[in-house]
């Protein structure tokens, strides 16, 4: 009766010990440095890629009109406020005329007085004319002396000269009046183009110096994005390329635009290339000037070539390459990379051919002797 009991004990003991041993062996081989490294593989495919460039910029107006007086003076009135839309030729405000109106009145009076003088001169000249012609006739019938006729002629010449002087005087006074009126007109601040009032620097009563801007008007049709591209990734940037502009305040929607020009001067300090990106149609509502925008410039689609994900690229001993799977073993293959797209695809110029298997993701750094374990998705990564 002892024997079966002992066997049962032994069996139970074995039932405990054996799983423990298996667990131990599993643990020893499947964890720590002895465990195979989980990797995922991908196949080199031939596909066309559409490279694009990403840059950052701020919204700016291409044309900004700073409107102010041409002479020093005081602002009399200002009819527009920031945010108002204005038409071309619209009067935005006026400078104080001070004594200009009085001077115009004085000038007008002077013209009238001059006209009176002109009439007087004309009367005198007409009389001198009459006298002169009468004495001419008298002289022809010897009814007067030669000397009297000469006197009358001289009087006529003087009267004509006075008349001419009076006429010119009126012209001068009228011109002066025009000048005053022009100055008077110049005191009005007029919008040169249709646009939007962006800045109002002075209020009525403020004294401003000649040339100081009182109001700034921007041409809303000329908004562009002053964009900076990192030089290292600015290959292929060209005028006319379509671009997508995402304003910081409207992250969900992109606005269409295009590269208007690439600045001939780059930023040497920040190692960036500068470019101007114009909106295809002005965005509604208008973004504020200075707003940050993300710009993506689409470059032309490249012809199909062997393509890998940039996550497959590794650096081993200073060489850039990929781990290829050859007969289940790992081989490091140096590659020469071509252009890449923003979604992480890179064309391989040299080193790989279509259909080769490369390691895409790996848990840790690989070496040629690494034991690997190919999985669909690495542990811990949620789809």
């Amino acid at each position, binding site marked *: 009766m002892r024997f079966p009991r*002992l066997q049962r*004990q*032994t069996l*139970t*003991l074995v039932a*405990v010990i054996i799983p*423990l*041993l298996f*667990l*131990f062996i599993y*643990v*020893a081989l499947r*964890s*720590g*440095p*002895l465990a195979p490294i989980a990797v995922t593989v991908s196949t080199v495919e031939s596909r066309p890629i559409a490279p694009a460039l*990403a*840059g*950052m910029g701020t919204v700016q107006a291409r044309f900004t009109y700073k409107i102010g007086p041409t002479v020093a003076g005081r602002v009399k009135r200002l009819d527009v406020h920031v945010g108002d839309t204005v038409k071309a030729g619209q009067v935005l405000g006026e400078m104080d005329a001070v004594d200009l109106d009085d001077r115009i009145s004085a000038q007008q009076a002077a013209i009238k007085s001059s006209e009176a003088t002109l009439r007087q001169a004309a009367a005198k000249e007409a009389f001198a004319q009459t006298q002169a012609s009468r004495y001419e006739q008298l002289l022809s019938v010897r009814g007067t002396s030669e000397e009297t006729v000469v006197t009358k002629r001289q009087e006529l010449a003087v009267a004509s000269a006075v008349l001419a002087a009076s006429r010119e005087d009126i012209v001068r006074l009228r011109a002066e009046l025009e000048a005053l009126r022009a100055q008077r007109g110049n005191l009005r601040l007029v919008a040169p183009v249709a646009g939007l009032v962006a800045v109002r620097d002075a209020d009525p009563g403020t004294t401003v110096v000649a040339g100081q801007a009182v109001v700034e008007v921007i041409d809303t049709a000329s908004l562009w994005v002053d964009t900076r*591209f*990192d030089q*290292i*990734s600015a290959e292929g940037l060209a005028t006319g390329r379509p671009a997508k502009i995402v304003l910081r305040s409207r992250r969900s929607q992109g606005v269409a635009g295009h590269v208007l020009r690439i600045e001939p001067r780059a930023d040497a*300090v*920040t*190692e960036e290339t500068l470019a101007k990106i114009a909106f295809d149609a002005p965005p509604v509502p208008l973004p504020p000037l200075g707003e940050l925008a*993300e710009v993506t410039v689409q470059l032309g689609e490249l012809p199909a070539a062997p393509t890998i*994900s*940039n*996550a497959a*690229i*590794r*650096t081993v*001993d*200073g060489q*850039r390459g990929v781990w290829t799977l050859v007969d289940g073993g790992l081989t490091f293959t140096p590659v020469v*990379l071509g252009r*890449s*797209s*923003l*979604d*992480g695809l*890179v064309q391989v110029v040299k080193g790989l051919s279509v259909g080769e298997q490369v390691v895409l*993701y*790996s*848990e*840790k*750094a*690989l070496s040629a002797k690494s034991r690997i374990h190919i999985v669909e*998705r*690495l542990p*811990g*990564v*949620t789809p």
Partner: protein
Amino acid sequence: MISLAGRDILHAWGKFIFTGIGLGLLIGVTLTMAGVYRGMVDDGKVLLDNSGANLWVVQKDTLGPYAESSSIPDDLWRSIRTLPGVAEAANVTYLTMQVGRGQKDVRVMVVGIAAGEPGTSGWPPQLVAGRQITRGHYEAVADIATGFRLGDEVNIRRNRYTVVGLTRRMVSSSGDPMVFIPLKDAQEAQFLKDNDAILMQRRRTEANRAFNRPAVPGLLDAVIASQTSNNSVNAVLVRIQPEYSPREVAEPIRRWKRLTVYDRAQMEEILVGKLIATSARQIAMFLVILAVVSAAIVAFIIYTLTMDKIREIAVLKLIGTRNRTIAGMILQQALVLGVIGFVVGKITATFAAPLFPKYVLLTPIDSILGFVAVLVICVLASIVAIRMALKVDPAEAIGG
């Protein structure tokens, strides 16, 4: 010949196994503690491995960029790049900060990586999902330990970054997971003040008569612009050409550029020897105490197991069993106990390791050393029990 030890174990196997498991849990804790220490050292080493650099160029007389702060101009890499033996030089910034995602925030080390292509020094050497950064701004590659997922939007300072790739085991020397972002963004994150601070600074500058002169329009703007711009990075990572030695390349930089340069060995010395020295000693102290406690407990257990069957041993002696056989029985039992304990300990340590917030590295060499130590402790512990067993008087078997 029958195995006395085996028969005895079978006789009370339940008690024996449970004692073994209890001992195993204790050994598991000890192994885990060793793993914690190894993990700390490994954190430092992977940090250096992942940077992909052979030399670290930092501000003169600092232990930067990991152990101390270091700040150097961001155009310095150009002059370093031209030195003989330099294959690649790349700017990098490191900043440990809280990064927000939704309501929560995580402590991470934000790494600013120089623009370029994957494989540039400082870039994550491999990913577990997603892709590397392709845009020059507002993209991030995050370590999986942050809890971020592909497509998540994370807030760093005032900007939002989209997570496009995930890494594993990319941590700082203190175990904080890394988040890689483009260098220009990182410079901003590191040196840009918050909006309120900028406004206050602007106001202060405006109030300063020296800068705000009515006769010099534009001066104020220039001063403010100069205050807000930043052209610094923390270090330049240098990869050297294979035919040069790190010393050869480092010497001219040290001498002529008047900067401090560290090679891999020196950097490891800084990280392991200086940065984590105190915490490592703390762990080591704890490990020693745990080992002593484990040894004492093993000794007690074997002693009690022997004392439990002191009457049976007396009987054995009475029937003329040789001392060697009795000693062998006790020793074998102690060794089996040790082996069960080690197996259980190794298993529990392995399954417990991933639950720790920081990395726990269980190396095979630690396991082997642990195994040997457990056996030695068992042998030593059984010596006391054997002495007790041999001294027992056979008369006790009948006397009681």
